[in-house]
């Protein structure tokens, strides 16, 4: 590279009229080891500019995976809910389909008997209540 050309480029460089390509030749010239003595003073500028470009961003960017987790959890919850409703439905079937008429009739009879006896039991309780009232009278 001719020295005069470099000097011209330098002058243009400080007037900010150089092109990107010309600036690259300047950087290349000053990164080489044979820089002319009177231009040595400018060397650090171009070395620093070249060096500055080598710095890289090394920090890892934490992407918001939490948000995604919540989304998937809500989807899973919705699915389990649907399954639950679906599997609970058969228990609501009518009695007629599950049992024969006779079975239902006997069950009804048994329940009637139970109700009758239950009534008896509750009548006895009214007696008891009466008894309690009277004893309370005496105790007072």
């Amino acid at each position, binding site marked *: 590279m001719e020295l005069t050309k470099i000097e011209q480029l330098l002058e243009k*460089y*400080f*007037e*900010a*009229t150089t092109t*990107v390509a010309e*600036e*690259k030749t300047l950087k290349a010239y000053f990164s080489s080891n044979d820089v002319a003595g009177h231009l040595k*003073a*400018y*060397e*650090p*500028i171009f*070395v*620093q*500019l070249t*060096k*500055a*470009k080598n*710095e*890289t*961003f090394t*920090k890892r*960017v*934490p*992407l*918001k995976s939490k948000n995604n987790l919540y989304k998937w959890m809500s989807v899973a919850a919705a699915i389990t809910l649907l399954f639950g409703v679906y599997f609970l439905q058969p228990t609501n079937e009518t009695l007629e389909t599950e049992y024969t008429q006779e079975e239902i009739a006997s069950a009804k009879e048994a329940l009637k008997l139970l109700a009758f006896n239950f009534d008896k039991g509750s009548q006895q309780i009214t007696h008891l209540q009466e008894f309690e009232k009277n004893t309370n009278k005496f105790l007072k």
Partner: protein
Amino acid sequence: MPFKDKLFRLAKRLLVSTEEAEDATQEILLKLWSKNNKIENYKNVEAFAMTMTKNFCLDRLKSKQAGNLKLVHSNYADENSSLQNHLEAKDSIGWVARIMEDLPQQQKMVLQLRDVEEYDYDEIAVMLDMQPTAIRVALSRARKTVRDKLLEKHSYGIN
């Protein structure tokens, strides 16, 4: 993201502190990520990201938080200034970095985008929302300031 290093370097040029620049870059990348769908509508994603970084960093510098940080930073620098001076006097490359830190924000950005990242004037005009002639003026000023201050240091060193 292919230009994340460029964003980081611009952020660092403006915020000086590496940690701050990393946080800023992370923030910008997350913002870009969240706008993933809309991003195709922009003509030049890289320029858009650069503008975002610029605005974000300038906001940070204005905000109180950054003010606190700056205070801490300068305190730190003061304690070790003599040691740093000793080291950097021998290291004129470090001086150039120091001088670049002291430039006005606009000149810093222009110098970073042009001389480090090697963008065209038109691209820088889009990123910084400036006229190309204004960029040229700012760039020339920045380069001359760096040169003059560096030569000053050199002659000081010799004397």
